[in-house]
């Protein structure tokens, strides 16, 4: 997971500046208070003389000072806050979004409306371009958090939100769901793969093509996918399915992880997943399908061909 202190976008950079200012302010006041308390504790400890100290009830001037000075500090902080808010929010939301993210329990549906691309959990972005993202939820409240790139934004059912995702250089960045959304909340990771514009276009083209025709074992796997009801929950382009309880698997093999980040997309992990998804991601909505070993082998051949 990245940290908000290593921003790669102008929005995250603005946030970092304010964070550092507030940390400095908090640190200063914290040290001041700790220092005063330590001073009092050492200098004014009871030395056993029995004498009562001077019974002062206060000092109006000092009291006014420690009311007004913090007030002044807060006013300054508020001004800086307003400025930073401006820098971090999208400049306009009046145009069609570049990316529509729909949060589900417990995965991220990604739609690139312009390119007719539908995928899941792994966002690809071209470096240097501000992508306007529309964020929705299919069920409960989730929260998108990619610390190095953008402010957090809630995915609220019934209320689409907008944010801007951009990065100034290629790289891989991690994100998480940050609002408790049920049993699978801990494993609702988001990967953001920022690519050069050319690589991004190549990726988009690859994703918008239908998958290559399945042959051999993979063809058997495709039949199993349909007959063993996988198709009810998972859509794959060309099979006429619209299931959206689980992620779209059309280009499953092109993704680096499975289960929204719970495991790497390797044959061993895929085998484990198909045999018992609950062992990897307890509480997720995919039940143990009780596939026979041959069914698993065929299915894996099919899924691994979905580039």
């Amino acid at each position, binding site marked *: *997971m*990245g*940290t*908000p202190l290593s921003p790669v976008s102008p929005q995250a950079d603005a*946030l970092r500046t*304010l*964070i550092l200012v507030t*940390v400095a302010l*908090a640190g200063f006041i914290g040290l001041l*208070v700790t220092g005063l308390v330590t001073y*009092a*504790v050492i200098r*004014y*400890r*009871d*030395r056993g003389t029995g004498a*009562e*100290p*001077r019974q*002062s*009830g*206060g*000092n*109006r001037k*000092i009291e006014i000072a*420690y*009311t007004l000075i*913090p*007030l002044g500090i*807060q006013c300054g*902080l*508020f001004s800086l*806050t*307003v400025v*930073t*808010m401006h820098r*971090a929010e999208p400049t306009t939301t009046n145009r069609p979004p570049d990316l529509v993210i729909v949060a589900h*329990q417990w995965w991220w549906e990604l739609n690139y409306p312009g390119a007719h691309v539908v995928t899941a959990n792994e966002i690809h972005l071209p470096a240097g371009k501000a992508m306007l993202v529309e964020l929705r939820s299919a*069920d*409960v*409240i989730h*929260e998108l*958090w990619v*610390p190095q790139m953008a*402010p*957090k*934004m*809630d995915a*609220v*059912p*019934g209320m689409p*939100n907008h944010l801007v995702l951009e990065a100034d250089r290629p790289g891989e960045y991690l994100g998480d769901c*940050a*609002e*408790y*959304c*049920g049993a699978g*909340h*801990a494993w609702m990771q988001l990967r953001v793969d920022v690519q050069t514009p050319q690589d991004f276009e190549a990726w988009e083209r690859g994703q918008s093509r239908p998958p290559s025709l399945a042959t051999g074992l993979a063809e058997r796997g495709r039949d199993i996918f349909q007959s063993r009801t996988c198709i009810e929950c998972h859509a794959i382009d060309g099979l006429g399915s619209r299931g959206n309880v689980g992620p779209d698997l059309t280009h499953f093999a092109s993704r680096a992880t499975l289960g929204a980040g719970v495991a790497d997309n390797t044959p061993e992990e895929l085998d484990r997943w198909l045999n018992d998804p609950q062992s990897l991601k*307890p509480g997720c909505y995919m039940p143990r399908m009780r596939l026979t070993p041959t069914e698993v082998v065929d299915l894996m051949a099919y899924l691994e061909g979905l580039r």
Partner: protein
Amino acid sequence: MTDLPLDQRTNFPVVAAAPDAPATGAHSGGWYRWVSTVDHKLLGIMYMVTALAFFLIGGLEATLMRIQLFVPRNAWLSPNVYDALFTLHGVTMIFLVIVPVQLGMAVYMVPLQIGARDMAMPRLNALSFWLTALGGVLLYLSVAVGHPPQAGWFAYAPLSLPPFAFYAGMDYWALSLLLIGIGTLTTAMNMILTVVTLRAPGMTIRRLPLFSWMMLVDSFLILFAMPIINAALVMVLADRLLGTHFFKPVYQGSAVLYQHFFWSFGHPEVYIMIIPAWGMISEVIPVFSRKPIFGYTFVAMSTVAIALLSFGVWVHHMFTMGLPMVEYYVFSAASMLIAVPTGVKIFAWIGTMIGGSLRFTTSMMFAVAFLIQFTLGGLSGVMFSAVPVDWQLQSSYFLVAHLHYVLFGGAVFAIYSGFYYWFPKISGRLLSERIGKWHFWLTVIGFNGTFMVQHVLGFHGMPRRIYTYPDLPGWPILNFISSAGAMLLAFSTLVFLWNLYWSSRYGKQAGDNPWEAWTLEWATTSPPPEHNFDAVPPILGRRPLWRAAHPQAEDVKAHYIEEPRLVAREKRLLDWVSDNIPRSGMALFLASETLFFVSLVAAFIYYHYVPGYRASAHQALNPLRTGLYSIALFASSFTIWRAEANARAGNNSRLHGWLLGTIALGATFMAFQVLEFVGLCHRGIDITSSMFGSTFFTLVGFHGLHVLAGLLMLALLYGLLAARLLPTLKRPLATLAIYWHFVDVVWVFIFGIVYLWGAL
């Protein structure tokens, strides 16, 4: 003053001797005495013991969570178990530990501090305790039946609702909170009446000890915050059990509205939790500095400022929801503003210590640690008030660190401090200082060890409420340290229990005033007798016992000016309240109920703007017919007024007639309402129909329930009068009449908003 006789034992001039104590409960010993008591001291102890039991349970929940988080990808606890643990931990610590233990300490100490014999309403006091205790039992029954709540302590919708939460745990959550909430509310009413009416002669409001003052302010906060969550819980239960759609986005409900309701309560709630703690610190630090509080007026008034402001900052819990920026500017500013009066107190406490002569008893050590830790928690809070910072760190472990610094490093440390301070008064024995020092240091190291690194974890991107975590850089080692600290913190609690046990048997005898403190609770024996005081010393300032010990000296010059006209008006109001405790109590209750109805009306108005709503309302309702039968209800206000007048005049035969008339008119209104509801259901418009059904039936239905409750009370009074069990109904009827008029006034508003504005 020197003319007065001196009390033999205390040497104080006898100003007012307490009358002979009438029996306040069964004096047979053992558990029956405890179960049946209405004595504030025994109830206070029961509150504290119950809270301690829940503290251990909540602490066990936390310990289990931290064990789970020792290493990444830990499969020891399943997500469902972990999710139930953090939900129960939050609900338990907030509603069953911090609030009740402080209310218990207040219930014990406030009457003593003001020189009173008990609270204003001892039986209500007992009811409040039992509601709280039984509410807690109800919550844990959910565990016993295998369905604990798992949506977090604030249970955002729609996660808390079907189809995401069919299990019964959420119903237990809502019902137990309603019960506990009612118990808290009635304690607050009782506390206000006590402080306002039962102060000993000479103790003006401006001479109140700060703990009592803080409890007075806190009680008003409770009075106005609890009804909001009650309304929200009612709506959640309706959504879950009756098929309404308040918070179901699929049916035009609003998840955002739930958060508005919840946090409008939730933010004042955190101040409800910390204000008594501030009161305790304000007692402990001056006494152990041997110096009065620095700037009493600013400390007292800053608390009032916080109480008022606390109702205006709630959206800061919703900064990431994508609400309009202008809303965020306003609430960010308000949240920054509320830090200022908080800072005033920190500096006042430091100012008290500087120039003093500090005695480091265990109580004082906890108070000093509080100063630093609460400040740190407050500062991370100020960071969150800057919206863009919140946009990165909310819902991360930085937030978990913040809330534990203010609630544990703050409130719990203050409670420990107050407990070490007042345990001698309650039990007659001092807690061991030797064990106490061990307790203190283990707690400080354990607490900071657990939560300091969580600030860093938040910066590393770790979200909250995850049952396990991946092996990302920094996460395993920081979590390991945090969990190790938590084990130490858990152990420190056991040391505290050991201190309690050991000191109860072998602790040194405390005597009346082991700390040389100045407030009235130290002017009686430890523990106090059942009637609290043999003689209350004269109260000529804020520190009665200091004055008694320094008869020639002048106490600190009070920086206030008692303006004669203001004082006279204040005195008239306070005198009226003292002579009319039941009616004043009812008035306080109704002030709280007003907010309950306002919340339901707010939901009604909010959903009015949903497409199709107005048409449904127009089609369903008949304002003319309803207006006509409403006349029956309005007429009943007239009849109850006449009944009251006759009761006052002692004219019981006429009273019968007017009472019956009131009951008949009220029953007529109810009958027509039932007919209206049945009519609507026949036409297919019921509570599940649409947003209109949800809001209409809930709002009007709750009003109807209030009318029904009033009718039952009227019938009860009538029965008591007819059976000659009560000679006069003057006072009970006067109290009930206020309630009845209130219900009528609420109907005026509901009729106007629902039937006229909403349907025409």
